[in-house]
């Protein structure tokens, strides 16, 4: 280790020696690692938005065959019948309004819920990072806005949020582990019903959020709810919310899956870029390596210098790329479709893993040129010009 510190300035000077070549290499590595990290965050976002976990205890009841929230119209009185079903703890009616139903990068989703029930059942799982629930309760046009949505739309408490023909006043900003909560604005149910009213839609809601008593009985309860309404004029389709996301986002998921191949290809690009740069550098320095060995550097040490140079390129380029990716992800980008959101967030673990990969690839890319340099005869290297 002290060895390494002593030769580090030498390696740094070698990298700076050909500024253009090094800059181009680093630029390429940075772009590739940016791509890799960002795609990784997309994959991770899909994973978190769609995979039902053991802790999930909320079912969503929609109108059967609905495409977008606005085609899902259920009578509000269904709520009482749902709550009567065994295994159901609570059923909260909700009205959804979205600015755009298709897959889009800037969707604003409003969810209207009865205020008391919302406070009782939702607020305990949310972190209010600005404003207050009281303020939300006091104003009929108030909204509790997810942090991601607030960041994306650049709104703070007191601002007005305008989308889908609705204007709400931001009463609080909420933070949650659930990507959906992070990307919606919760309003009073009656407010959303009134603003949507075009000739008597009062008493109509989009969906019910059903809290089950026992998470292991989710499927059973879902079947029971759908059976209850099977013969009604408005039959239902009940599933965990994440299952709806997975269905709605199937196109997006496919694209992200395809993109993850690009992410892997980016890693190959990193390897190729570093290998090329190091191979050229080693060819330039045949005589210098002979000098180093003449003054006492062992072949292994010379190989080590080369390998470290490769990893250093990986570290610096990868670091810049990861930083770029972090900056992008700080804007909380997300894709919304049918009122549901897949959010891409920076996972520190994933970023670190990416950096580690870049270093490892740099190391691997330097290995072959390093071995070749270590094997080249010294005396011959001085003769060759």
């Amino acid at each position, binding site marked *: 280790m002290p060895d390494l510190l002593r030769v580090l300035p*030498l390696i740094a000077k070698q990298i700076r020696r050909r500024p253009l070549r090094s800059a181009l290499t680093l630029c390429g590595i940075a772009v590739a690692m940016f791509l890799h990290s960002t795609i990784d965050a997309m994959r991770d976002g899909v994973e978190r938005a769609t995979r039902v976990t053991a802790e999930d205890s909320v079912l969503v009841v929609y109108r059967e065959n609905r495409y977008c929230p606005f085609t899902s119209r259920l009578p509000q009185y269904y709520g009482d019948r749902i709550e009567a079903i065994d295994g159901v703890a609570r059923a909260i009616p909700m009205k959804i309004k979205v600015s755009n139903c298709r897959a889009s990068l800037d969707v604003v989703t409003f969810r209207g819920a009865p205020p008391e029930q919302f406070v009782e059942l939702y607020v305990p799982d949310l972190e209010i990072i600005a404003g207050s629930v009281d303020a939300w309760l006091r104003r009929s046009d108030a909204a509790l806005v997810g942090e991601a949505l607030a960041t994306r739309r650049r709104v703070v408490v007191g601002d007005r949020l305008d989308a889908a023909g609705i204007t709400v006043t931001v009463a609080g900003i909420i933070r949650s582990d659930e990507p959906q909560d992070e990307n919606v604005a919760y309003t009073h149910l009656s407010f959303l019903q009134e603003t949507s009213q075009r000739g008597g839609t009062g008493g109509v809601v989009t969906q019910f959020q059903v809290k089950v008593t026992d998470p292991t009985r989710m499927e059973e309860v879902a079947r029971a709810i759908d059976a209850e309404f099977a013969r009604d004029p408005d039959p239902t389709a009940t599933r965990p919310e994440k299952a709806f996301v997975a269905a709605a986002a199937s196109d997006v998921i496919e694209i992200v899956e395809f993109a993850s191949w690009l992410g892997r290809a980016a890693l190959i690009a990193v390897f190729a870029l570093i290998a090329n740069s190091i191979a050229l550098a080693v060819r330039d320095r045949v*005589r210098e390596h002979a000098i180093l060995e003449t003054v*006492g550097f062992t072949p292994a040490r010379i190989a080590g210098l080369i390998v470290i140079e490769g990893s250093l390129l990986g570290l610096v380029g990868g670091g810049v790329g990861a930083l770029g990716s972090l900056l992008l992800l700080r804007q909380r980008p997300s894709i919304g479709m049918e009122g549901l959101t897949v959010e891409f967030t920076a996972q520190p673990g994933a970023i670190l893993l990416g950096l580690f990969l870049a270093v490892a690839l740099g190391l691997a890319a330097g290995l072959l040129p390093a071995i070749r340099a270590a094997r080249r005869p*010294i005396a011959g290297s001085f003769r060759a010009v």
Partner: protein
Amino acid sequence: MIGIECRALTKKFMKGETTITPLDSLDLVIEPGSFLALMGPSGSGKTTLLNLIAGIDRPTSGELLVDGLDIAHLSRSRLARWRAEKVGYIFQLYHLVPVLTAYENVELPLLIHPLSRKERHARVQRALELAGIADRHDHYPRQLSGGQEQRVAIARAIVADPPLLLADEPTGDLDRESSTAILKLLRKLSEDLGKTLLVVTHDIATTDYAQATLHLEKGRLVTEPGEEQRHA
């Protein structure tokens, strides 16, 4: 102080079908602490001999003892470590690393020794002063004249304080004045520091500084220089 013994030392190179024999069964004993000049026409095997003694090339056959050690049979890494302690090599073309300053070039051999920055600094400074180039420590090779580059190269060769110095035409590319200065410096290293010096040269002036002169011709030592060499 280091002595050298060569017995029937032979080096052959294969060039396609033909075999070149730059060193042909050479016998040579160099006493510890001596300052020898080695002369000979171009292609007579001078550099090859120096390379063998420094362990940066291997003999085809024969025996080679440096400081009593059979270096021909050491591994490459062992040789490198051995050189780090025992050998300073001065090249005709200086061979400084262009991206490093004079100071950093001289520091290079010390990077593999477990020395603190301060200790390294003291040694580099001393070597630069001995070589008379301390005032140019922060210059890059391209900012130095040939004579100055060679002084830096000498400082690099002596910085780790090796007992054996090998120099391959150290004044070959220098003007008279610079050559004389370098030769005086080499003599000083031999006389004051007791180093064993073997200096390959084309320059007859070198023989005035050395204790003895060896003549190499077609891979063998000759007592008197042959025709071509006297007219060189």
